[in-house]
């Protein structure tokens, strides 16, 4: 195994481009090292990206949007009051990952690029319409978070490509987001269903909405029908019923040790309701 500590994105991407065998970027290592120790993935090349300038920074852009460095940990996000105020759902979703110890290491980028359909921060980022900045042989470009996962454990990043930052839009007035997951215990568990909702209200009425589901399909889902079900409403019971039905209908889950198909489909609807209510209350509070 070869271990590298590149000082720049270009160097890191070049190492990845020229490497043979299995390559992994080492952010917090809470997936990479666990998989290594469990004999699941033994990388030939390990590229530690934590020594690249700026990767530990959370920056608010002039347009109000946010750029989150690829080595920023969950704990650092939670401790950032302005980010947490703007994107409480995204920050909470990342905060759900693991324990205090894991929070000191785990990153948003790692959570996304590990490619797990159950990754907690991903539905929240998709609901937020987040994108990633990518560098590599094709040059620097942006890709929607929704388009990164392609299958369990797989991403659309080509050989030699890497994420250089996560971008969240500016929080518009009257907006709010939330993320909830269902686990059988209270913590230290993997989502059986995850749901992110981001919406805007004007005079109590929902004007924009994005609803995203995790762990109910091979990749994260952006459920347009679920958003349509509540846009134009005041999130009354009828709208919530339509939302739950649309969320459940979008599911394409598997039966496994973590939950049955019918359970996941049902709980997706339950969570969509609960998450939307939190996002709505936040949006109302933000609009006041």
């Amino acid at each position, binding site marked *: 195994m070869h271990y590298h500590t590149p000082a720049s994105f270009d160097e890191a991407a070049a190492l990845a481009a020229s490497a043979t065998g299995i390559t992994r970027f080492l952010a917090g290592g809470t997936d990479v090292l666990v998989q290594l120790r*469990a*004999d699941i993935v033994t990388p030939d090349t390990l590229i530690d990206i934590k020594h690249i300038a700026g990767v530990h920074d959370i920056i608010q852009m002039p347009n109000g949007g946010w750029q989150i460095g690829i080595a920023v940990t969950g704990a650092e996000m939670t401790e950032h009051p302005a980010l947490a105020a703007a994107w409480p759902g995204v920050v909470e979703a990342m905060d759900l990952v693991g324990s205090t110890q894991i929070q000191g290491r785990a990153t948003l980028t790692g959570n996304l690029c590990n490619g797990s359909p159950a990754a907690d921060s991903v539905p929240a980022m998709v609901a937020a319409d987040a994108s990633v900045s990518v560098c590599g042989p094709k040059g620097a470009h942006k890709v929607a978070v929704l388009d990164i996962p392609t299958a369990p454990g797989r991403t659309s990043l080509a050989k030699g490509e890497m994420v250089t930052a996560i971008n969240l839009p500016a929080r518009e007035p009257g907006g709010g987001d939330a993320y909830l997951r*269902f686990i*059988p*215990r*209270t*913590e*230290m*568990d*993997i989502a*059986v269903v995850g749901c992110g909702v981001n919406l805007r209200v004007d005079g109590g009425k929902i004007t924009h909405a994005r609803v995203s589901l995790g762990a109910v399909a091979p990749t994260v889902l952006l459920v347009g029908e679920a958003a349509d079900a509540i846009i134009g409403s005041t999130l009354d019971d009828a709208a919530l019923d339509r939302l739950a039905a649309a969320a459940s209908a979008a599911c394409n889950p598997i039966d*496994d*040790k*973590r*939950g*049955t198909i*019918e*359970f996941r489909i*049902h*709980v997706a609807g*339950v969570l969509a309701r609960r998450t939307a209510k939190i996002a709505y209350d936040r949006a109302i509070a933000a609009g006041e």
Partner: protein
Amino acid sequence: MSLDDVKTSGFKYVGTSPDRPDGVDKVTGRAKFGADAYAAGMLHGAIVRSPHAHARIISIDTTKAAAAEGVKAIVTRADFHTDLSGENWNIMENVMAGDTALYDGHAVAAIAATSVLAARDAAKLVEVTYEILPHVTDVDEAMAQGAPIIRAGAADNSVPDGLHPNVVRYHESGHGDVDAGFAEADLVIEDHFRTEATHQGYIEPHACLGTLGGDGKGEMWCTTQGHWNVQKICSALLGMETSQLRVTASEIGGGFGGKTTVFIEPVALALSRIANRPVKIVMSRSEVFRASGPTSSTSMDVKIGMKKDGTITAAKGVFRLQGGAFPSAPMEFTAMCAFAPYNLSNVKQIGYDVMANRPKQAAYRAPGSPMAAFAVESVIDELCKELGLDPIDTRLKNASHEGTKASYGPTFQRIGLVETLEAAKAHPHYSAPLKPGQGRGISCGFWFNFGGETSVSLALSMDGSAQIVVGTPDIGGSRASMALMAAEELGIPYENIRCTIADTASLGYNEVSHGSRVTYASGLATIKAARDAVKKLCGRAAAKWGIDPEAVDWVDGCAVPSGPNAGDFDPMPIAEICKRMGSTGGPIVGHFEASPEGAGVSFATHIVDAEVDPETGKTSIVRYTVVQDAGKAIHPAYVEGQYQGGAAQGIGWALNEEYIYGKDGRLQNDVFLDYRIPVASDLPMIDTVIVEVPNPGHPYGVRGVGETSIVPPMAAIANAVSQAAGVRMTELPMSPPRVLKAMDDAKGG
């Protein structure tokens, strides 16, 4: 011993809760656990395990592995002793497969190499050719016609004709006429119950360091609940004389019954014998799940008849336990414990020990009893509901007491079930209002407790302090309890006593730390050894004073004349006697060896409040109270710890823990991510009430407390969840998908 000989009051040290002597070592990292041993030239072992649930081993080709860098030894079954029978053969077969791999994770070969990585890499190079055989992992399927036969001829002669060869042992007991009893009942309820296998989940994986040299002498360091047992089994499996192997028990990171046998210890010794170097083996968590000893899974039918006034007229239970690919499921304990809390005229219990393609089950706190309680106490709860009866009053009406002929045969001596029920009834928890969506469950539980071979030595030092040497690994704070009991007898402070767990070369044989026996049996032996030492101390004082030894009493750490006729001498403190012991007759050592047979059975009553999320089926335990008879709580804080620990593990067993096997017979959840034990935030504060009804068989009335606490939780939680969910839950675990489905089915949805 009669109750008159039991000291029940006037204690100075017993009943206080000082810090445990091993506490600082444990919180500073100085304590040495199984994996903390190192030796010069040490090699590391790795085990090759079967990926198949059932497969004939056609060949094992070790050529490539042997050529790998750093490899110093490879063993297969051929490297162990051959002439084995009975349980030694079973353990051998479990430790290293013979002709057939019997479960996913079954060891088939092992490597010793110069580093952990070298050993692991080499293990991957061992080429095993398997012929895959049909498998079965479910208990009911394993008993059914046409099920794959695990091992023909494994059944003993207790098994009635006509049963599948996987049924290897049969038990039947009880008294009275159950059919007549059911005919007398106003209501008879019968239900079917199932529980999945769970794991003890001890935080420390199995680990050992073994040395076996060309001179035939061996050393073994390991994490175990009983090192004499390790000595006995390992020497048998390696074909050596028992005394040539010295075994030392490390500090132990939990066992709960799962460290009462061996898995890797004989393998380390066999590798060491070939390499002529010490070999260390540490299991991964996945190996612990796949190839140590989880509990049995069960399928049970329980039928109980009750009169309108709550009197139980008859009870019958059929308990089928799957215990892995060996005869070992503790089905007779399940059967015998099932109805033990109740004073019944008509009772019958039947047990089946069923083999399946799973690892050999091991003990887990009160082995077999919790499953029985789940089934029996659920049916009693249902009867109470149907007949509009209070669950505690109904249990009180039927409760076993002194003189009751127990469902499993003997007549109970002084027991404390009624006292636990009365304390539960009086507890504010029982009358506290419930919120909507919540349910309250009650359950009783029973465990026998045990004595067993015990040997203790107590040596006095020249300054009058004392060192106790016991042979029972400390799995729950027992060193503190031993020191408290010795302090009481010697009349010296707790801090002046050091209690050590001796290795197998330093003391007589000691049975494993199991059966809740340590504070009872080693405690009894400690008291008797201290009394032996006191007698010798009194003898020294008598000699000095020139009076009869019988005329000397021991009071508050001093020899004193027993009365005015004995003479007028100042009290002689222990330190003064010990200072001169070299010149007054030599070292003063008290000792005691016996197999105490007066272990007192123990009962508990638990109260649980559970809340069920009607939309997801997820259960939260919102309040929990354990009431249990300790006989006498030597160290109340650690007794409380045992009560809380049993309840915590029971909550896991009830709600989320389970072995999940795929259709391929492979274990799907061999890591803590998917084998869901409760995390701290899943548990409420667990309240405890220590009831003390003395056991006539112990000088201070001690009953064991370590096991009974896990008997009632599953039943009590099932009763609470069933009430909250509005539907009877008959299968464990009560995971959210299962509860949600039961609620949906009940609604007809």
